[in-house]
């Protein structure tokens, strides 16, 4: 097997550690970077370095932040008293795009999954419970993914939160808006049927 010079091999190895990048893609990206303009490549390196240096996690909600608090926690217009619990920072972006939530978030940094070696202690659960009193939280919306791990996490949190007398809700699952029933998969349609609501008339 051909061996690259150590510098190239190191670059390939590092790229190969990124999510979704296999050995073939790592090689392709490495050679792209070697061929690309020096300024462009250094700009990328600089972006990585500066993101890593300036971006940390919000001390309150564990979302990504530049500074001690994220933009959402620092925004005085956000309603205190309601917390939306999500698994990852990218889920915050997803909920924010809806524009229908005006409270604050809490990012767990994952979901309970013994296979991945993640239990409640590896998640920001303690940090969530510690926010309830000082922020006078009335409702916690459990917005974890609708898979078995997300469901397990929601059940676990629900129990912990109920003990502390907070209203706990779980996002509904159902049909995509603007879609046709005909194209919905059976499981989603089944869940939507279970979660049906009375219609005023």
């Amino acid at each position, binding site marked *: 097997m051909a061996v690259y010079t150590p510098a190239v091999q190191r670059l390939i190895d590092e790229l190969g550690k990124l999510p979704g990048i296999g050995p073939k893609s790592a090689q392709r990206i490495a050679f792209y970077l070697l061929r690309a303009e020096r300024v462009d490549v250094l700009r990328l390196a600089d972006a990585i370095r500066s993101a890593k240096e300036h971006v940390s996690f919000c001390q309150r909600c564990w979302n990504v932040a530049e500074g001690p608090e994220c933009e959402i926690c620092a925004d005085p217009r956000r309603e205190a008293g309601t917390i939306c619990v999500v698994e990852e920072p990218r889920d915050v972006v997803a909920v924010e795009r809806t524009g229908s939530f005006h409270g604050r978030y809490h990012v767990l940094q994952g979901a*309970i*999954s*013994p296979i991945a070696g993640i239990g409640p202690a590896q998640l920001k659960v303690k940090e969530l419970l510690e926010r309830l009193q000082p922020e006078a939280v009335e409702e916690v919306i459990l917005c974890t993914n609708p898979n078995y791990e997300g*469901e397990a*996490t929601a*059940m*676990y949190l629900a129990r912990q939160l109920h003990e502390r007398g907070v209203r706990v809700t779980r996002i509904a699952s159902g049909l995509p808006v603007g879609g046709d029933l005909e194209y919905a998969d059976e499981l989603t349609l089944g869940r939507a049927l279970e979660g049906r609501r009375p219609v005023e008339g």
Partner: protein
Amino acid sequence: MHVERLWLSDWRCWEVAELAPSATGITLLTGPNGSGKTNVLEALAWLARRESFRAAPRDVLVREGAPQAIVRGRFDSGGRALLVEAECNVPGRDRVLVNRQPVRHHRELQASFPVSVFTPDDLAVVKGSPSERRAVLDETASSISASFAEARAGLDRVLRQRAILLRQASGRLTAEIEDTLAVWDRQLSRLGEEVAARREALVAALRPAFESAYGRVAGERGSVSLSYTRSWSGELDAALAAHRGEDLRRQVTSVGPHRDELVILHAGKLARSHASQGEQRTLALALRLAAHTLVEEHVGTAPILLLDDVLSELDDYRAAALIEAVPSAQVILAAASPPRLGIDVATTIDVREIGRRLGATQGGGGGAPLVDGGESGTPMCPAAVES
């Protein structure tokens, strides 16, 4: 539903092959051992299920030295022509076209294109471990209902998570382990109750079909029974709670649908340990026939029936009775020896005459690449498909 014509290229031992089974009745596929009969049945079943009934790894499906295998079939589904084409890529993903349109979800195809397979390995259903019998139930329930397949997959996932959690606990029940175990147990009991209840309903539906199929093949009635035994009594969550200490100690989940048993009795005794080899084979066939009938009732089309060398261990009477009991659908029967008394064959195909096996180098008819008609508008037909 029946297959009018089947083309293989670079499938197992076949470089190219082409055959046209009879639309109704029995098509007999003959040829000596090792001439590629089972490979033909396997290709047709793979086209429907995208899985080998011999549980073979994917890379052996493609002829050695070939980049990919292609299986094409032209079907008649209640008067509607269906051209199903599938490419088996190793490495890589399968590509499937139905009437030149790509199919994304495998389930879409499976429901409209059922296939029942009987093989000599079915003996394991009676003789083998309980997991073999549960697998027959799950396979049948999944081809009737997609939501069962979903619950079944979820059950596997939750059981795996729980098993790893038990291992991580290494015998000690800390507060955190207890709370985490509780959430997996809740999901396990919900999914477990659902899977068990649906398997029980399936067994209840299979029972009369099983008894009558056995009666017809063996010529005796009422001496067999089928029942489902849960590994727990009462509610599953209570049973899980009761076994928690034991589960922690042994680091396994000791109750749940993964420990249930499909009990097959013959003359009042466990067929697994007490029936003779010939009886066991008859019982396995009766169970397959019953499942086949049930799927036909639910899906609305009779599955294509593939019988791989199943007559060889039956006596003449039972072999003839089996063929008699087989539903009126299209049947393709592979056998090394010529048919015996009382078996009415519609077409006989000598497998040595359907194509070219390993060795030759010329390009062939069925081997044209798959052409997606979605964009070009006018589908291009490979020569073999037009003929």
